[in-house]
């Protein structure tokens, strides 16, 4: 399988503060890669650079064979980014929001198909025609996941996908993500839920203080540390530093 995402020696400075420090990893097509790490580790900063939102201070990013420093416009065509605790335009209904977003990718009948697909994924029932401002956190997250997935991106970048969601909503969203990966979409996600990462991710990378300190499949990592859960891996690795 080819690499959908290659990150080499990526660094980011905020003024004098080094938020991401020489991070390298790659994600294969159809793989689910999970970024974990303590608060302020640099996960969101890394994801924002990969999503073309922030400039890199140094390093290299390739998405679907295209280079970030020269082809950011091309990269935007094959990615979907879902920011952590994002919202939508409050005056729109869920359906109108999906339609608004779909219009950036296609038009006519194909757009209608994309919106229908989005509504299926969101599965908000009648509430799809309520105003977004009336949605609960879980409904909002479903709508946004749906909008991120409906255009059929090659790489979906999802920051803290299930944070703040109840058990059922989190379960369903994990299911959706696993499904799209099965259909060949590459997923790069960040999470603070170690159970979720263990279950979903093909491989995990742990960032701390801007550095990538661990990388491997969940079972590899558990074996290396001689523990039973990813949570224990996280804690042992974090304490070690």
């Amino acid at each position: 399988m080819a690499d959908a995402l290659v990150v080499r020696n990526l660094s980011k400075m905020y003024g004098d503060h080094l938020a991401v420090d020489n991070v390298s990893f790659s994600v294969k097509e159809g793989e689910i890669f999970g970024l974990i790490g303590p608060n302020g580790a640099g996960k969101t900063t890394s994801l924002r650079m990969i999503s073309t939102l922030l400039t890199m201070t140094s390093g290299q990013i390739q998405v679907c064979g295209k280079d970030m420093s020269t082809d950011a416009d091309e990269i935007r065509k094959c990615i979907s980014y879902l920011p952590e605790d994002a919202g939508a335009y409050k005056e729109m209904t869920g359906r109108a929001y999906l339609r608004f977003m779909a219009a950036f990718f296609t038009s006519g009948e194909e757009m209608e198909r994309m919106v229908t697909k989005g509504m299926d994924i969101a599965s908000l029932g009648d509430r799809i025609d309520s105003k977004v401002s009336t949605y609960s956190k879980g409904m909002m997250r479903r709508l946004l996941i749906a909008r991120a997935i409906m255009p059929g991106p090659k790489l979906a970048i999802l920051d803290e996908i299930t944070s703040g969601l109840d058990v059922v909503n989190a379960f369903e969203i994990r299911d959706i993500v696993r499904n799209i990966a099965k259909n060949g979409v590459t997923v790069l996600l960040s999470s603070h839920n170690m159970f979720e990462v263990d279950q979903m991710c093909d491989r995990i990378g742990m960032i701390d203080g801007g550095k990538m300190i661990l990388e491997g499949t969940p079972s590899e990592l558990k074996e290396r540390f001689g523990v039973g859960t990813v949570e224990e891996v996280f804690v042992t690795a974090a304490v070690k530093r």
Partner: protein
Amino acid sequence: MNHLWNLITKELKELLTPASVASVVIVAVLFGVMGGMINTETEKAMEVPAIGVISFDTPGGGVKDYYKDAFDYIHEIYGETKPSPYITEIKGVPPNNEPAIINKMNDLGISVVLVFDKNYSNNISKLAAGTGTASGGICVYWSEVKTGVFGSISTAMIDYLLEEIGTKTTESIIGGDYEPGVLKPIGRDNVTSFNGKIYDGVTPSEISSALQSQTLLMPILIMVIITIIGGMIISSMGSEKENKTLETLLTLPVKRTTIVSGKLIGSAIAGLLFGIVYLAGMYFYTNSISMGGSLSLESLGLTLSLLDWGVVAMVIFLAIMSALGICMILGAFVKNYKAAQTLTLPISVLAMIPMFVTMFVGFDSLPSFLQVIIFAIPFSHPMMIMNNLMLGNTFMIWGGLGYLIFFALMTIFVTVKIYNSDILLTGLVKKKGKINILSMFKRT
């Protein structure tokens, strides 16, 4: 009490951010400067203007020289002894020649001249003897028209002067006690030179109020549109950031220029719609309190051609684009909806300054450094454009248009730069104590 104090300090810290304090201070300073401007302008207008006097009076045999009396009265009223630098007797001007008088006034730098009619003394003495009904004619020549509300005050000073001459003449004829209005010794006429033309029977304040009644709407309208649009665009940027919808937009396969244009044009349309509603409201308002008896601009030959209206539309459009550009730039630094509210204040103040200046003081009466400041504020130009077009102030029209084009392009250029940089998402980041604004020009 401790809890209360704790809550109060928290509240103050939240409310008194550097941005909000700065914008309030700016407003206060600007209002102070404006107050000073208006003050000096009123003082100037309240001063009795230096006047010239021309006499064509030819008293017949045995008739009293009432002109000589009037000349003395003027000195008395001014509180001056002869010869006074404020009162100049002009000689050697041919009679019945308005342009010659106006030219002479411009040569001498005198803006008001009282011209005494050739039958001045004859008419008054017939009136005094009860053998005639005509008054002694004084025609006031004006060679300068001031715009702004205070422009009309010097007219009032001259009105007072003529009234006093009348009273004193009456007293000299009838003696101490008399019924006011029993005798009307003075008949007054006006000739005003304005914008290269001579208007008979018109005072400068009539002209400036005619100009105002037609052009007063524009400054208010522009101010309102800009304040509304400014508020809208900055708070929409604030809520887009708060909801992270901006982040989402920026990762879509759309050009940054398209996103910027979408925001600009969307808010411009909304602003224009609001503007039209306000315009309609203002139109009915001014119509219902119609300025009774005032001159129409058509009668003064002051009208706009189709090309002129094109220029007006262009200038309004460019000013709105500039306002939007400034707001987009300010909005880029806003972190959330709340912070957006305080940032709209500087914009509306920036629009209010030229509004007050054009409405009350008039651009021409400003000292030159303030003229430069007013010129530099892009919103001044649409407020002044109609007057400038009617009066043919070429420099202000084309210079202003050129400046606006430059300004609008600059703000849009800077906005697109910001949209292509980290600043939009991270704000200004401190680097070794310094804020690095130039970092936004690093990337494409």
